[in-house]
């Protein structure tokens, strides 16, 4: 029921996330983040915060709000590119879009959000 992890020891020769983003290859980004070597590399994720006891105050830090807005922009772009067929409550589809967001914009060597701008626009 559990596999012994094995696989390539490096990503040598594979395009970097920034190159895939420059080429607008969002499907390539999804493949790359799913090809992470789990015994060597982490899985970057951006997780929302939900307080089941009551509302969380809205952030007051401008940088935090700006980053959230930038994440929201790319989340919508990647969702449209990858999972336009998904219901609003399709958790697996939400996870897929958020994984690509995190892999593309905060894994080591990723493209900073401020540079993402209009690059990688979905064809």
């Amino acid at each position, binding site marked *: 029921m*559990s596999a012994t992890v094995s696989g390539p020891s490096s990503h040598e020769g594979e395009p970097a996330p920034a190159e895939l983003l420059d080429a607008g290859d969002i499907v390539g980004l999804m493949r790359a983040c799913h090809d992470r070597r*789990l015994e060597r590399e982490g899985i*970057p994720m951006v997780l929302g915060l*939900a307080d089941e006891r009551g509302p969380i*105050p809205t952030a007051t830090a401008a940088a*935090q709000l700006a980053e959230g*807005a930038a994440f929201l922009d790319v989340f919508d772009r990647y969702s449209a590119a990858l999972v336009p067929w998904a219901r609003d*409550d*399709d958790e697996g589809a*939400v996870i897929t879009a958020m994984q690509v967001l995190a892999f593309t914009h905060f894994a080591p060597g990723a493209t900073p959000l401020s540079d993402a701008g209009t690059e990688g626009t979905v064809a």
Partner: protein
Amino acid sequence: MTRPSFQTQRDQLARGHFIRVVNYHSTPRGARDELARELAGFARDYAPVTLEDLDRLFETGTWHKDRPGLIPVFYEGYRNSISVAAPLCDELGLTGWFPIATSFVDCDPEHQEAFARAHWISLVEEDTKGGRIAMSWDEVAEVSKRHVVFPHTAHHEGFDTVLSDEDIRREVVDSKAQLEAVTGQEAPAFVWLHGSSYGQNPRHDQAVKDAGYRYQFANTMIHRVN
């Protein structure tokens, strides 16, 4: 309760309610240098997140450090969590969060490989050379002095296979009590196999809440429960 959806995620991002997490599993000695480089990159760009930092973020909605926060999570309770991951976190000033399948730690080392293969715990080649694969309880206690340790159920189970009252007590309640007895401190969070969110099943949600967990980690969000 908050169910995962595209709209939920949009609302959370728009309000600034998010945190970065990086999930790891086995961290073998043979890949230590690669892991060190990756964690060093994170430590350079992001701030550590302690339990108190996460509490404050939920209370105020605002992140209070000069760099964004990042939570490195090392799942399952592998022995290499204390021999590789925790020392690297210490060296780099990161706070590691360690969800532990408590029965994996409890299992006789002779049978830990079979336990892993029976319960969706991935192994690397180093784990199959014989000897202990999981941390010992003393090692769990040691990690808890500088990092955050909490149950990942007892047997690495998902809510959909934890069905009877006895199952729930063993996987949700007893795992917490056992961990707290060893560490001498609160086990503040819980996470199901597959990262299922709070809100999937009222019975399981109530069990997590009644057990006294502060947080449930899931694949799209962190739920504050108590």
